[in-house]
């Protein structure tokens, strides 16, 4: 028992959890057939067993049963269910299309009376929801802690749960990025989706095959970079924002050494064995170069035709998208995509090299 718990504790650490989630995600995109009914039984059965089994653990119970955390459990199950449901319907429709039939939605084109056909569903929905909400409210009192005290900051101090994905980003990026630039980019990116995506297919029915790339990008952002970070920020981040496994006690005295170094340290001190140059631009030139490469050169280079790439990199060419979308759409889309995956890139740089900043101008609060 302890052994299983230790394994689960270990595998829910940020590094392992994130890597496993990313790989599982990639596999499910490669082999969408997994979104079958059988898989649903395994998935929800597994989640239910995990929860039931874990509830007997006092540390797990303490965190999960906190009133404000209860909705996150609901969310976890709902998001899992609807992800499965959407992809399952998409895959089913793809099968029908492959067999020469039409998507299910196309076969239900005939019009029906809204009264009563729709109105009664809505009424039923409202009644059930009201009952659910009232029962929930009777069973679970809303939390109220000690009166506000500006002199006594609790540890951990957490933002409201729906912003915990951003708070998790603070581990890897400074507040101006994690708290200002990235949230803005998320909103701008969402607004831009209909204008970037010019694929006319898959409008008005579930499908996977016809919109593979769009769905993959959106799902990765939504499930792995948002929902997963919210959930782990809620359940797995304790005092000092340290990581704690689901069965670990949130020990406020646990100290984790911070050994992170900047690229400038690695380059000048470790590799060249010299002190840091006093001119900040010289000091940071490598990091500046990397940022310029990533945001300036890479988007342009990716648009080149395959032949311009070395053989082993040819899969990276996005030339067909460039041709299809035109420069404006292509650059907007690629920039947003690159900025989105800059989060996992920075995460892995941290985990592998203890990297703190790629570019560091602490003088003017400009650290990346």
């Amino acid at each position, binding site marked *: 028992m302890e052994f299983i718990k230790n394994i689960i504790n270990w595998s829910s650490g940020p590094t392992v959890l994130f890597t496993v989630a990313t790989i599982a995600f990639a596999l499910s995109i490669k082999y969408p057939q997994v979104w079958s009914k059988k898989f649903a039984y395994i998935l929800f059965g597994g989640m239910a067993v995990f929860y039931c089994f874990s509830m007997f653990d006092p540390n797990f119970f303490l965190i999960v049963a906190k009133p404000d955390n209860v909705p996150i459990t*609901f969310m976890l199950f709902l998001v899992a269910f609807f992800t499965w449901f959407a992809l399952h319907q998409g895959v089913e429709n793809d099968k029908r299309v492959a067999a020469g039939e039409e998507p299910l939605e196309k076969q*239900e*084109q005939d019009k029906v009376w*809204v009264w009563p*056909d729709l109105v009664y569903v809505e009424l039923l929905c409202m009644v059930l929801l009201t009952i659910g909400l009232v029962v929930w409210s009777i069973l679970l009192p809303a939390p109220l802690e000690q009166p506000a005290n500006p002199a006594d900051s609790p540890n951990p101090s957490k933002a409201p749960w729906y912003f915990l994905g951003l708070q998790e980003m603070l581990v890897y990026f400074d507040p101006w990025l994690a708290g200002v630039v990235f949230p803005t980019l998320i909103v701008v990116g969402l607004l831009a989706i209909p204008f970037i995506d010019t694929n*006319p297919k898959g409008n008005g029915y579930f499908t996977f095959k016809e919109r593979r790339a769009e769905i993959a990008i959106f799902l990765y952002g939504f499930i792995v970079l948002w929902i997963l970070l919210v959930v782990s920020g809620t359940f797995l981040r304790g005092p000092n924002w340290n990581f704690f496994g689901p069965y670990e006690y949130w020990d406020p005295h646990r100290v984790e050494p911070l050994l992170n170094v900047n690229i400038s340290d690695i380059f000048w001190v470790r590799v060249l064995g010299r002190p840091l140059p006093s001119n900040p631009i010289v000091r940071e030139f490598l990091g500046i170069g990397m940022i310029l490469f990533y945001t300036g050169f890479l988007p342009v280079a990716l648009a080149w035709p395959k032949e311009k790439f070395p053989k082993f990199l040819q899969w990276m060419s996005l030339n067909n998208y460039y041709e299809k979308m035109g420069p404006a759409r292509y650059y907007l889309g690629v920039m947003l995509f690159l900025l989105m995956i800059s989060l996992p890139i920075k995460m892995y740089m941290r985990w592998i090299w203890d990297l703190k900043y790629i570019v560091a101008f602490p003088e003017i*609060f400009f650290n990346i």
Partner: protein
Amino acid sequence: MQKVLNAFSGAWDAMTESQVWKSVFRHGAITSNRNRVLVMMSNVFLHLHPVKSRKAGIKLRYTWCMGGITFFLFLVLTLTGLLLMFYYRPTVEYAYADIIDLSEHVPLGIMRELHRWGAHAMVITVWLHMFRVFMTGSYKPPREFNWGVGVILLVLTLLLSFTGYLLPWDQLAIWAITVGSNMARATPLLGTEGPLTAALKLGDINLINSGNDARFALLGARSVGENTLLRFYVLHCVGLPLVAAVLMSVHFWRVRKDGGISGPM
């Protein structure tokens, strides 16, 4: 038995034939197609809907009713929020005590619970609604604009939730808002600790300081205090719900104008 039934149906007829009843409901029993049209057209709430709809679009497995549920939760929150406003005073002196009174001295005191759990639920259903709209490709032409309205509604939902989080004025509240609003300090150009802000100078004087930066504008003070409470209260109870209600009307109007719930061409 028969007598009782007859009496009932007699009473029913008398009621539905009366001038009062007919002044409210402009159509007879909804058993004919004509009356199915009339009920949808003559009722201000129902007329958001079309009279007829494609079968695929009203299937639960297609819309998950998520937009509808989100809207319903918004209504629940408006109603319960209104009731909470009867008791709650947004001052440092009273706020916390009023919250306690709400559960201890108000009969059937679950209004606060309904409001809090409803708000959490609404955040979740908004995300799921967006997810559904994405997965059915319903943001594609001609619905690009309505997707945009939706994104703004999503932001408003989060802001509503965020401003409400402060109002109980307990430790959870002020520290969550402190952590959240600390970010504003790092806004480029507009926050004291933001990149490039130091470049905004007149002679030797920094234009942006902790008394006028982005965080100050959000909190109405240098730290979360009574000004913040008032500011968040006004936004939470008046400003944001009004904007959200207007945008929801636009959203629903647009669903109709863009050809109803999306479906395959």
